[in-house]
């Protein structure tokens, strides 16, 4: 396996840009971004057929040997592409490549949105903390737009399984319970109790089938000091399902990085729900939302136990996996206990 080099990437892009000449890639750097794929920043330059020189900052996301979560890059690519140019800000997707012959693993290349912040802890201090209300308003409004969208009209039913309103919860709970079964390296009595409760107390059918981002939280969007959000990122767990699933994930206590009750370090829980309801035109029935919030503790634990296993197996020794295993797993248990009134 050869190194990932600027020349190899330029060679690939040259074959995709009809009529372009003198294609170069420079400033290739790996950055932190998303948990399931290697993310690189690079600068593309080429001479267009009309003669002008074009420069463009890009992001390359490549499958790693192992990852926290098993996701399909074609689904992530399709989700981004579906919302491009809509009320949901996303970068433009350029090329999806499934053939590992080009860069050793499948990958996709997208526009880079430059000059914005993404750190969830960055939201906790000036100048961004002064704009928490504005960023929170945009965050939960954009989620409302995602929930409101028609996945069939977007064409996403062609790449994502379309569940019925009655089967969203069984499919999701079954999937994440199997992940815990498969990857847990020590017994998980709290999350097992949560799973038993969820099965015994199913939620009502989804009020509609929505696009579910799957990881909608602070850390997965680009923001600025004016309180605007410029890009929703990391659609690697996108699927179709109950819109309350996304709302519940974003409200998860494990994302309260400020140590207080502000969800995602931005807004109180009830305010976030109010904004989402106004933007989506949907209702967050308290009992149904409670079910999805507790479900998201199971989902979180599925991710954290998989992190621990990937590190222990030695397939991926990124420190984020050990961090997840030690810090997030216990926080997730505490979040589940809190929701069940047992903390």
């Amino acid at each position: 396996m050869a190194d990932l080099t600027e020349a190899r990437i330029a060679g690939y892009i040259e074959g995709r840009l009809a009529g372009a000449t003198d294609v170069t890639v420079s400033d290739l750097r790996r950055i932190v971004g998303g948990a399931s794929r290697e993310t690189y920043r690079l600068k593309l330059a080429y001479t267009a057929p009309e003669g002008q020189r074009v420069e463009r900052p890009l992001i390359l996301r490549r499958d790693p040997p192992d990852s926290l979560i098993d996701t399909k890059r074609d689904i992530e690519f399709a989700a981004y592409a579906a919302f491009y140019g809509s009320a949901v800000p996303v970068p433009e997707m350029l090329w999806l490549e499934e053939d590992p012959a080009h860069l050793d693993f499948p990958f996709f290349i997208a526009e880079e949105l430059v000059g914005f912040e993404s750190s969830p802890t960055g939201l906790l201090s000036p100048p961004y903390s002064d704009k928490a209300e504005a960023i929170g308003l945009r965050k939960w409004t954009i989620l409302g737009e995602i929930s409101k969208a028609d996945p069939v009209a977007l064409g996403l039913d062609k790449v994502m399984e379309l569940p019925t309103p009655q089967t969203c919860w069984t499919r999701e709970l079954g999937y994440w319970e199997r992940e815990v079964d498969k990857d847990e390296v020590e017994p998980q009595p709290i999350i097992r109790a949560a799973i038993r409760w969820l099965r015994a107390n199913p939620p009502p059918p989804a009020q509609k089938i929505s696009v579910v981002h799957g990881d909608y939280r602070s850390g997965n969007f680009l923001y600025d000091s004016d309180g605007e959000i410029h890009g929703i990122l990391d659609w690697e767990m996108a699927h179709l399902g109950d819109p309350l699933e996304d709302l519940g994930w974003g409200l998860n206590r494990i994302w309260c990085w400020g140590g207080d009750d502000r969800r995602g370090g931005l807004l109180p829980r009830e305010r976030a729900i109010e904004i989402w309801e106004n933007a989506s035109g949907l209702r967050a029935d308290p009992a149904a939302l409670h079910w999805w919030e507790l479900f998201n503790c199971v989902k979180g634990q599925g991710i954290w136990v998989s992190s621990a296993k990937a590190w222990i197996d030695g397939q991926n020794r990124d420190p984020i996996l050990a961090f997840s295993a030690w810090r997030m797993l216990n926080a997730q248990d505490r979040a589940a206990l809190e929701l069940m009134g047992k903390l």
Partner: protein
Amino acid sequence: MTPTVQAFIGDVAARLGMVFAPDLKSPYLAGSAGLTAAVLMMAAEEADRAAHRLVEENRAIRGIFKDAVAHATSEVFADELRTLAAGEDNDLRISVLQAANNDLRRALIELHAAVERDPGPAARRLDAEIWSELAESTRRRAFNSVRF
């Protein structure tokens, strides 16, 4: 053995996070070094407390099992609960204590599921005892640096 393992790892973590990481040119490596420093700080804390928290937790779960045999769903499980309840932590190596903890927590899951199905007052008391221990287990595992 001094300096303690906790002090040494904590110092390495501080150097990595505050001295080395800021000077790394690659944003990915700088981020990775910073995260490694955070994980090392947790490792330092765990090095000091791990044996204590495992012994304490194993003792607490054995205490639950002593009063729980009547709620076992089979004679085999009842025997397992008796055996586990009679266990002792004589070997204080972390790996041995963790193995015992895994056995105890696996049986606790089965017991909890059985108790949930029983509406009787004794089962309700045991259920509350199990939940109390589960909440305590998360306090034992929490790190000083973590706010939730």
